């Protein structure tokens, strides 16, 4: 009997160890770091998830977001909202790229430091399915879409450096920026997490901002929902994927607007709202443009008056419209395309009829339909998502 003692001991162990639920503890900041951060910032205990997962209608055609490094995006968010990174301490990226406006500005020309203002309309960073899938942030070659209305910046880093050092925007030198960042106590923990060291360098700052911006995008609109459940795409020129069938979840008005859009606009702005079909085009805003756009950068007179083709996600929120914010409302934009296209020599062929500028002459109802369709491109989640909001305590 005594010899069976080990057996009984074992049995009691089995009975005593409860098959209980798991209870894991996750930690991120140290206690000390939390204390410092809490003084200035309203950050969650565990960082937000910045992974971007595309709807199937985009991944099915081979469009994928590139990976975002979460810890760098967390740091990038703080940099994006930090007004101390401007010469007079009043301007941050978010001054001109406002979350509730899909990261655009509601002014034709945005306010920079010392009451200066920008010379072009702010870009809606949320007008794309995803920043990193759209832009050539680390791609090279012809498929890499460049930044700015005139396509002058090649990478998100170039672009951020441009904004920080532009005299009309933040007016800093990169040296000012790194000094300022290094002197703010709340950056040490964030750099530690993002880079494993608290040392501040220009390239780290830019990389962090790029990661935050690269996580942005809208891909959860009504249009996306419908496209996910829809078949019947066809592929037009330059790989333009177009949804030919009516969407069952759209109103009749929205479906009519989609048809008009597919026929007249998708050849540039794209039928699936993935990437624009053309990188740049002259859409006939003016006969004699003062802002030569891409032509001024490349020196190629065939590109005078050409600007980057924006995708139109969240377009209802991003007015005023065009590179100079000349149109206050979408109605004005549609009126322009309907009867106002100017026959500039570089006007793109899809907006021409023979040797003249096209006159679409949309009826009142057609205009309403187009606008109803453009409304389906709004992604409300991006506008409310806390991980893209201002982290600073007021």
């Amino acid at each position, binding site marked *: 009997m005594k010899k*069976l003692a*080990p057996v009984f001991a*074992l049995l009691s*162990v089995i009975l005593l*160890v409860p098959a*209980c639920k*798991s*209870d894991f503890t996750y*930690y991120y900041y140290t206690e000390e770091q939390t204390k410092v951060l809490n003084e200035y910032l309203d950050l969650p205990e565990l960082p937000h998830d910045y992974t971007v997962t595309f709807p199937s209608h985009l991944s099915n055609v081979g469009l994928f977001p590139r990976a975002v490094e979460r810890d760098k995006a967390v740091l990038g968010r703080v940099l994006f909202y930090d007004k101390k990174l401007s010469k007079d301490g009043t301007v941050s990226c978010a001054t001109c790229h406002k979350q509730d406006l899909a990261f655009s500005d509601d002014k034709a020309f945005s306010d920079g430091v010392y009451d200066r203002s920008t010379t072009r309309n702010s870009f809606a960073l949320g007008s794309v399915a995803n920043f990193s899938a759209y832009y050539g942030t680390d791609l090279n070659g012809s498929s890499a879409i460049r930044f700015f209305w005139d396509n002058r910046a090649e990478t998100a880093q170039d672009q951020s450096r441009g904004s920080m050092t532009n005299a009309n925007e933040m007016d800093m030198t990169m040296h000012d920026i790194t000094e300022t960042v290094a002197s703010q106590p709340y950056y040490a923990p964030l750099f530690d997490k993002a880079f494993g060291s608290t040392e501040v360098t220009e390239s780290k700052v830019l990389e962090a901002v790029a990661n935050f911006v690269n996580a942005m995008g809208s891909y959860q609109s009504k249009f996306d929902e419908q496209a996910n459940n829809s078949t019947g795409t066809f592929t037009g020129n330059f790989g333009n994927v177009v949804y030919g069938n009516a969407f069952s979840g759209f109103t009749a008005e929205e479906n009519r607007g989609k048809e008009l859009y597919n026929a007249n606009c998708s050849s540039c702005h794209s039928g699936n709202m993935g990437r624009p079909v053309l990188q740049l085009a002259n859409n006939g805003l003016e006969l004699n443009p003062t802002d030569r756009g891409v032509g001024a950068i490349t020196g190629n007179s065939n590109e005078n008056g050409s600007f980057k083709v924006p995708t139109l996600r969240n377009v209802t929120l991003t007015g005023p419209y065009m590179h100079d914010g000349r149109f206050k409302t979408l109605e004005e934009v549609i009126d322009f395309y309907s009867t106002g296209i100017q026959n500039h020599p570089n006007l793109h062929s899809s907006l021409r009829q023979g040797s003249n500028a096209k006159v679409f002459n949309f009826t009142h109802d057609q205009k309403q339909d187009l606008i109803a369709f453009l409304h389906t491109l709004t992604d409300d989640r991006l506008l409310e998502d806390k991980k893209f909001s201002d982290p600073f305590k007021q």
Partner: protein
Amino acid sequence: MIRNVLGLSATLLLMANSCVQYHYSPNFLQTPYHEQKGEAVVSASVTGGPTSLGGDFSASWSPVKNGTVMLNYYHTRSQFQDPNIFGGTSYIERSRGYLMEAAAGGYFPLFFGTGAVYAGGGIGRTRNDYGIERIADIRLNRFFVQPTFTFRNNWFRLGMGLRMVMVNFPKGNIDYRIEPDDIAVIQKLEQESPFVFPELGGNIGVHFKPVTVMAQLVLLPTQHSVDYGFDASNFGIGLSLDLHELGRNKKKPSTTED
């Protein structure tokens, strides 16, 4: 079956290339060869792959007729230098874990050999470093029921068995800097624990009284290895020593008493 084994080997190769972090790794499936009261055996094996090295120890004793108790201990560690083809900071990933358990069972003659059924349980812990000290420290406990079949003669030994295990992960302490993909796996462990699955294993050996030279293999033939970061198999070689063959009337070993 062959297909499965091939599939597993392919998965294994892939896993060996991609990571060293396992949330569970099966120890060898021990098949004590006892046929008589008083027999006692201790064994030690080494196991490992391109990036890992482990040791598996077992002691078994038949204190009563047809009854066996055994103690097993398994420890493994691995290390992997991230090659980082993108040229960023390259870091070293490390992993270590152990499993310690006790079991009891009964044996009986079966066909031309011996059948046995064991039941047992134990505790373990894995400590995975995902590089730059991002550590997931997770405790586990495991229960198992294990029918086996063994054959032995004077020079040869063959044992095999099926082990039904229930693995539970009661506690974890996890650095959230670990990459989101890896965190997602850990969260799945937390949410879906306990896990119940079968393992197949066996050993083959040549006996030179009182020592046996043996090869051991254990396989986890389910999706768990892929879905939850479990190690899909273990292979190793080792030695065992039949203490009762060392000399007649020797005192019984004390290995099972602690």
